[in-house]
């Protein structure tokens, strides 16, 4: 075990860095997608509601590994081979980010929708009755209150997304699991390799959830 750490430790740490980078990229766009589709599912507009519903249903109904293959191999094949376009090559990081953003975005939009719906309707009505527009009321009154109830679920979703990056090892992105596979192949020490990788995930995720607890407590103070 010591040998693996001394020889491959640096490589595994870098891979963890890649994992975090991928997770952050995915989460960033997931938040944007989640907010867009979450809002689209609460506005009073049938077309918006239906589009948001389809997005959530499709993404939730497809396993992420399938989504990853589809985005990384399927879409370029469609564009280049079937449609004859000459699109630039997509990197594994880009494809991985798209997958995570779509996948996590769908769950985020549900969290955001539920959070917004948990805010008493009277808050929006009071804001509107003062002459504020729908979006200003949303931004200043409803969303700040919704975020309080959403924070625990959002953090939970962050952790799930961080773990889901391991699925993207299948498209060859050198994140932690992908790298660990190589380490294991080189050393034949399966137990030690996967034990170390498990501990690495555990440490990062534990730190993350501790930070989350602090944020949550701070948000709830004075309430």
């Amino acid at each position: 075990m010591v040998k693996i750490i001394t020889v491959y430790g640096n490589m595994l740490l870098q891979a963890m860095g890649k994992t975090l980078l991928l997770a952050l990229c995915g989460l960033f766009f997931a938040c944007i997608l989640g907010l867009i589709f979450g809002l689209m599912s609460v506005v009073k507009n049938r077309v918006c509601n239906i589009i948001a519903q389809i997005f959530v249903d499709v993404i939730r109904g497809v396993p992420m590994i399938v989504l990853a293959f589809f985005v990384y191999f399927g879409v370029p094949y469609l564009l280049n081979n079937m449609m004859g376009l000459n699109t630039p090559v997509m990197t594994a990081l880009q494809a991985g980010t798209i997958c995570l953003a779509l996948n996590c975005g769908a769950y985020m939009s549900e969290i955001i929708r539920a959070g917004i719906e948990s805010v008493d309707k009277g808050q929006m009505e009071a804001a509107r009755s003062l002459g504020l527009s729908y979006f200003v009321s949303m931004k200043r009154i409803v969303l700040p209150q919704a975020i309080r109830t959403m924070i625990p679920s959002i953090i939970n979703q962050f952790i799930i997304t961080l773990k889901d990056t391991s699925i993207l090892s299948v498209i060859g992105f050198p994140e932690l699991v992908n790298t660990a596979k190589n380490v294991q192949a080189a050393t034949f020490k399966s137990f030690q390799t996967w034990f170390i990788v498990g501990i690495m995930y555990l440490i990062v995720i534990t730190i993350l959830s501790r930070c989350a607890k602090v944020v949550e407590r701070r948000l709830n103070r004075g309430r």
Partner: protein
Amino acid sequence: MAAEEIKIHVEHLKKNFGKIEVLKDISIDIMQGEVVVVIGPSGSGKSTFLRCLNRLEESTGGTIVVDGVDITQKKVDINKVRENVGMVFQHFNLFNNLNVLNNMTLAPLELKKATSEQAKEKAMQMLERVGLAEKAEAYPSQLSGGQKQRVAIARALCMNPDIMLFDEPTSALDPEMVGEVLQVMKDLAASGMTMVIVTHEMGFAREVADRVIFMDGGYIVEEGTPEEVLLNPKESRTIDFLNKVL
């Protein structure tokens, strides 16, 4: 009233929720400075009527003209109209994420009606008026029901409205807090504000109303001065209702 100016003109107003007709045919004119109290059994449509007046409910038919603007027209900028029509709700609806002062200054600032100092000064003035100046920094959760409702009234007044709508402002209050809210409303009425009030407080209606409207089944059944409607009702439904509540 001195200036016989019509502030709210309602003609053949209809409102359906799906297949249920809540308002069947409502017509009424409300004058500048008039205090109109709407009474009636629950389900009679009185709250819906009130909410149609600032388009929190979209009417199904008829016309509603507020301050010369027909708000049933789709292209009307309803936010502009609402700036002049304050509303007070049964459940107060103070913004829980903001303290009292920010509750009051939010709309004036967002709508660029005032600078930060002006808005604050106005808010403190209004808080003074409802007797809650010392609560400026408090959050809604730290206030009693009566205090919340007084802040809600003050918040609406910060927009300098011409008209105030009250939707059962005392129904969610503990009995000992009803008086303080009614007092604020009485002062407001005395200041010449045009007010439409849905309430179950018959004593208050008698004391403050210029006109009392009795609604039932989506119609205005009877209207007149408090003496006419509350003391000498003519319609049998009004008599039934008053016997039950008085």
